[in-house]
C-alpha cells in the first residue's frame, strides 16, 4: 500500500477516534471565519485575492443527536468574505480575512411570525503562515493568527432596545487566537488523487457587552478536515472535484463565566466541492456541505446545508511588480 494511502487512512482513523471520544456541545451561527482560513501554500511574491460568498441555512432543530420535525424557526446567514494572502517567499505568507454578514432569523407558525436580524462588518482575521514543505508534490503549512474584534456586538432589537443574542451579532467582541495546520499531497493512489487534511483551533476570549455588565465568551472551536480530490485537465484549465469530511467541535459558550445552555457540540459534515482553475491567475470554487452527524448540547437550531462559492485572482509580483496597479 502506498505511503500516502496509509497516511490518509491514519488521519481518517484519528478523526473517527476524536469524533467518538467527545460527548456534546454549540450553536452554529456567526461569520464562518475559521472554516475559510485556507492556508494552502502559494508561490512566492504572489498576492492572492479571494472573494467568498457563504450561505448557511439553519433549519434543523436538534435535541442532542435527534432532529425534531419542528421547522418553525429558520436562520439564514449570508456572509461575504474577502481574503488577501501574500506570499513573502516560499516559506512565509501573510493573510488577512475581512467579513460582512447578514443574519436573519425567522419564526413562522400558525398566524404568528417574527424576525430578528443582525447585519454588519464582522471581525478581521490576520495570520502568519509558515510552509514547512512547499514542493510540487507535498505541502505542509502552519499558521498562527488573531481574530480582531472589529465587528459590531451591539446590534439591538429596535422594538425592545435590547441586544440581539451574541450569535446574531456580526462580531464576537473578543480578541481570539487561531492556529491552523494543513497538509496536502498530490498524486496519491497511482496519481489519481490528491489528498488534503488540516485542522484549526480557535482559542476564544470573553467580550464585554452592555456597558461591561455582561461578559460573553464563545466556546473554543476545533475543526478537522480531510478529503480527496481528483484533477482533470481541460486544455489549460484544471477541474478538480473533491470530497471532504469535516469535523467541528465547540465548547460551551459562557455568559458572565456561567455555562450558557444550548451551546456547544459536535458536528460532522460531508462537503462536495469543485474548483476550476482557469489559468494560473483565476480560479473558481463551489462547495456544498451537508450534515452527517451532530451531537449537540440541549436544543439547538443548526445547519441544514451550507453553500460556499469563491473566486480568486492571483497577482505575481515576481514577474511584474506593476500588476497590482491594475487591481
Amino acid at each position: 500500500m502506498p505511503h500516502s494511502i496509509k497516511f490518509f487512512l491514519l488521519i481518517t482513523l484519528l478523526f473517527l477516534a476524536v469524533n467518538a471520544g467527545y460527548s456534546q456541545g454549540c450553536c452554529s451561527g456567526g461569520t464562518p471565519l475559521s472554516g475559510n482560513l485556507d492556508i494552502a501554500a502559494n508561490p512566492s511574491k504572489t498576492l492572492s485575492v479571494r472573494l467568498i460568498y457563504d450561505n448557511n441555512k439553519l433549519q434543523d432543530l436538534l435535541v442532542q443527536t435527534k432532529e425534531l420535525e419542528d421547522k418553525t424557526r429558520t436562520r439564514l446567514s449570508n456572509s461575504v468574505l474577502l481574503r488577501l494572502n501574500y506570499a513573502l517567499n516560499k516559506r512565509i505568507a501573510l493573510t488577512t480575512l475581512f467579513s460582512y454578514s447578514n443574519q436573519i432569523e425567522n419564526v413562522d407558525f400558525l398566524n404568528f411570525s417574527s424576525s430578528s436580524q443582525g447585519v454588519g462588518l464582522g471581525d478581521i482575521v490576520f495570520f502568519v503562515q509558515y510552509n514547512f514543505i512547499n514542493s510540487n508534490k507535498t505541502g505542509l503549512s502552519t499558521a498562527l493568527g488573531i481574530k480582531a474584534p472589529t465587528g459590531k456586538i451591539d446590534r439591538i432589537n429596535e422594538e425592545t432596545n435590547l441586544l440581539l443574542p451574541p450569535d446574531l451579532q456580526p462580531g464576537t467582541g473578543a480578541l481570539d487566537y487561531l492556529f491552523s495546520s494543513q497538509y496536502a499531497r498530490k498524486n496519491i493512489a497511482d496519481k489519481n488523487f490528491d489528498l488534503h487534511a488540516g485542522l484549526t483551533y480557535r482559542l476564544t476570549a470573553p467580550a464585554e457587552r452592555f456597558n461591561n455588565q455582561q461578559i460573553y465568551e464563545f466556546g473554543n472551536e476545533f475543526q478537522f478536515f480531510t478529503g480527496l480530490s481528483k484533477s482533470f485537465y481541460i486544455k489549460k484549465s484544471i477541474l478538480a472535484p473533491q470530497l471532504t469530511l469535516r469535523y467541528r467541535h465547540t465548547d460551551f459558550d459562557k455568559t458572565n463565566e456561567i455555562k450558557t445552555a444550548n451551546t456547544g457540540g459536535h458536528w460532522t459534515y460531508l462537503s462536495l466541492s469543485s474548483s476550476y482553475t482557469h489559468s494560473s491567475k483565476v480560479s473558481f470554487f463551489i462547495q456544498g456541505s451537508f450534515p452527517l452527524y451532530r451531537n449537540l448540547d440541549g436544543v439547538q437550531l443548526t445547519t441544514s446545508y451550507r453553500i460556499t462559492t469563491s473566486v480568486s485572482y492571483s497577482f505575481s509580483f515576481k514577474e511584474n511588480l506593476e500588476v497590482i496597479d491594475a487591481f
Partner: protein
Amino acid sequence: MLLRITIFLSILFFTSCKKETPTIIPSDSSEGSITVLSDEFEGEAIVVVGSEKSNFMIAFNRKTADGTLLDFQVVQRNFPAVMKDNEGNNWNIEGRAIEGPREGEQLVSVNSYIGFWFAWATMFPGLNIHSGEEHSGNISANSPAVGWTIPTENVFTVLGQDAIPAVDAPQFETYLERDFIEAGAYFIEDNDLVIVVTIGDETKIYPHSILNWHEIVNDVVDDFSYSLSFCPITGTATMWNRTQNNITTTFGVSGLLYNGNVMPYDRETESIWSQMRQDCVNGQLIEDKMEIYQVLETKWSTAKQLYREPLVMTTETGFGKDYTVNPYESYITDNDWLSYPIEYEDDRLPNKERVLGVIINGKAKVYQFKNFQ
C-alpha cells in the same frame, strides 16, 4: 364572569363562596404524611399545607371572607380532607370546605407558587426562609432602565420572539386510569411534575414535559380565557387572566429572560411582562398587574389520586417536538449551573431547591419541602 369561576384553590384577590361539588375522589391514600403550618407574614395570617412525599405545597389565608380567623390542624390519611379547623370543617387541597358548617366555602388563596430557590432569592433579595437562616449582607439593586420598570442588565435576549412557540389550541384527553392500565404506560410517569388547574367542575392537567417546550399555554374554559406559563429555568408556574380592559389577547414567549425567568409578551400590544413579578415591565401596558390565579404543582401520582377523570393536555400540540426528552434535564440536576446570570445570589439554600414562595405586599417568604416531611 369571575364569580362563576373557581379556579383551583380560589381566585387570588377574590373570594368565591359558590358551592361547587369537589372533583376530588375519595381515597385511603398511601401518600406520605401531610403537614399544616400556621404562620403570619406581613400581617397576614396564612396556612401552608404540604407533603414532601406527595410533592405539593400550597398556601391560603387563614382569615375567611367573612373575617373569621380559623385555626387549622392536619388530617392524615383521609383524602380528600387534608386539614380541619376549630369550627369542625374539613378542607381539601383546593382550600374548599368539603364537610362541616362552611361546606362549599372557599378559602382565600395567597399569592404563591413553587420555584427554584435562586429565582426567589434574586427576585426578592434578602427574603425570609421559614425556620431558616436570616439573611445577612448588603443588597445593592440596579436602577430601572428608561422605559422599563426593571434594570435591563439582567435581561437577556436568548431567542427571537416566539422561537419557543406558545400553544394556543391545546388538546386534552380524559384520563381514565383503567384504560391506561390496560393499554400500558401513560406518557406521564408517576414522578413527573404537572400543573393542575381547576375551573368550576373542570380540572385540567398540564404536564411539565409539554410545558418545557412551549412555556406558555393560552387556554379557555367556558368564558374564561387564561394563560398558563411555566419557566423551566426558574421552575415557576403561574396563571393569569388574559382578558384585560375588555380585550382578550394571547401571550407568547418573547425570547427574553429576566434573572433567568421567562418574559411573556401580549400579542395585542406587544408589551413585555415578567412572570415572577407578575406585572408588565415594558411597553404600552407598563406597570399593569397580572390578575393571578393560584395553581397546584405536584407529581402525577398525586394528581391522579386527587382528581377523577381529569383532562390531561396531550402531546398533539401541532408542533414537532419530542416530549419524551427533557431539554433541561442536566440543568435541573446541576445546582451550580444557573445558565443565565442573575442580579443577586444567595447561598443560604441550594440554587435548585424547589421552594414555595409566598408574596404579600411585594415581599416574599419561602417554605421548604423539609418543613412538610
